[in-house]
């Protein structure tokens, strides 16, 4: 027997997203829309893609004329390039790992063990992000540099100095998405977990970490790319011992005026960075971040 009460919740038919009441356009006008997208794309092509294409072309055209892969052969053969490539990659990976660890720890305390002034700290992080990276190295120069406070062992001219500076500067880039993710975490979940007798490390591992993974993935990959591309921090150390790919590009182009060589290094650098960034976009989209 059908029992139907006053105002029935009849659930019939296919499940449909929100009755189609939102999100539909005012009738598709694909042609007009494409035309409107043209001017900004044209500007991007003229000021960004065309110059990049010229870099690729120049890398294939040595000063002696003609077209050859000579520049690439020279670059790959050189000890300096291989060294720079290795330094760039391991520095970026190590800095990313450091930022993830440190950022996770700090964000955890700000979000879940709040103290008076925690919000001010969060604001400070936002401000911090608007400062240029080389300020960090500048400060480190006072602390660890030749005439530094801590002493004049040549810490800054080693990769470890660069690593410290990069971790310091880029950690907030991880903390910001993390804090946003933590803000959405239902505190009821934490309370339920702790009422069931779970201790803090277990709650972090079982409840917080899974929720934070998309933010960690997104922030971490962004930091990885930014570290691969970082120039100011390395330049300011004035270190001859630490050469990364962007430094090599700068050195070859500006100091040695070897444009084909600089362009060849640039192409390699772009491929690595864009490849990783593409990966980052895919990962963060998968993770729904």
């Amino acid at each position: 027997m059908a029992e139907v009460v006053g105002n029935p919740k009849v659930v019939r038919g296919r499940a449909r997203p929100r009755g189609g009441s939102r999100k539909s356009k005012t009738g598709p006008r694909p042609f007009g829309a494409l035309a409107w997208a043209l001017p900004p794309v044209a500007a991007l092509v003229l000021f960004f893609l065309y110059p990049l294409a010229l870099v690729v072309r120049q890398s294939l055209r040595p000063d002696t004329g003609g077209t050859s892969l000579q520049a690439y052969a020279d670059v790959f053969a050189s000890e300096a390039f291989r060294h720079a490539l290795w330094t760039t990659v391991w520095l970026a990976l190590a800095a990313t790992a450091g930022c993830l660890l440190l950022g996770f720890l700090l964000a955890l305390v700000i979000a879940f063990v709040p103290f008076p002034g925690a919000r001010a700290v969060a604001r400070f992080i936002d401000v911090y992000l608007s400062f240029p990276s080389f300020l960090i190295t500048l400060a480190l120069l006072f602390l660890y540099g030749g005439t530094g406070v801590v002493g004049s062992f040549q810490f800054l001219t080693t990769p470890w100095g660069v690593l410290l500076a990069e971790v310091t500067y880029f950690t907030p880039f991880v903390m910001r998405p993390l804090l946003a993710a933590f803000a959405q975490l239902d505190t009821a979940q934490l309370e339920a977990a702790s009422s069931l007798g779970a201790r803090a490390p277990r709650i972090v591992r079982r409840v917080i970490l899974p929720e934070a993974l998309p933010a960690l993935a997104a922030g971490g990959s962004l930091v990885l790319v930014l570290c691969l591309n970082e120039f100011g921090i390395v330049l300011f150390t004035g270190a001859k011992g630490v050469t990364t790919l962007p430094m090599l590009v700068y050195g070859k182009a500006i100091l040695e005026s070897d444009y084909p060589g600089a362009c060849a290094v640039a192409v390699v650098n772009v491929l690595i960075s864009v490849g990783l960034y593409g990966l980052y976009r895919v990962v963060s989209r998968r993770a729904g971040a």
Partner: protein
Amino acid sequence: MGIRFDSVTVAYDGNVVLDSLDLTVEPGEVMALLGPSGSGKTTALRAVAGFVRPASGRVYLGGEDVTDLPPYRRGIGMVVQSYALFPHLRVDENVAFGLKARRTPKGEIRQRVAEALELTGMAGYARRHPRELSGGQQQRVAIARALAIRPRVLLLDEPLSALDARLRSGMLTELARLHRELPDVSMLYVTHDQVEALTLADRIAVMDSARLRACGTPRELYRAPTDAFTASFVGGANLVPVTVTAGGVSLAGTELKLDTAGAAVGARATLCVRPHLVGLGEGPNRLPGTVREIQWRGATHRLYVEVDGHTVMADVRELKAPPALGDTVDLHFAPDDGVLLPAGVSHG
């Protein structure tokens, strides 16, 4: 100025959300589109507004085919659930928006904005911003904004569902008054709330699963529904599977008198009786059963009585001495209060 749907079909990505709708709203009429969510009622309204393009079929406004016109050329007023008042504009600027967009002369704008605010009782709030108003006030401004352009038709998409129950009944009275003051404006009123539809509409179109199920005056649909879905959605209903006999129907051996309107004897059918038409105690068309649940609702008691394996609801005047759970009671209903519907899928 009326609205006419001529077998309008709408599909998103091959998923049909409105299936060849044929419906005419007469000039000056209030038509409610009533149905559960996902029934296609909002899609129908948006097809009139021009926000969805039918895959096939035509939409007419006052005899003019507007299917291919962009929304801004249709001359419709629209009020949506979220009101969509422009937060950066004051109340009077919101109401003037449509007139300015049409380059109406300044003096006329001022006069028509004042008129519209007067009509909706918002004249005292002209210089406020939307966020300074309550939900009910925002609602009035949204209506004033839609009316200021003197629309040919007014489309209302669940306009009251963001309001609490008390405000809602007040706004219903208000909307009825507005309709009396603007007798020429046709209104298409989308709602999932049968009370709103019954109160306000001249006719109700019941929608379900992208299709129009029934269309008629509230009284027709309530007194003489033609299918089980309509019967259950417009007012509550007891729907019981029965077999047609010579003088009425048979419910598990119990003979009930009923106008069978020439249905073939022996055919399976569904009996529909409104709960408030079911009485407690002896009477014609007696249904003996066991009380399973009693709800006190102030003025009435609702009894859930198990009659031969089926639950029958009865709304009776508040009982001084209600029966206990498990008591055996008699229910009854007058022969002309029962409606025979085709046997169909059971709902609920």
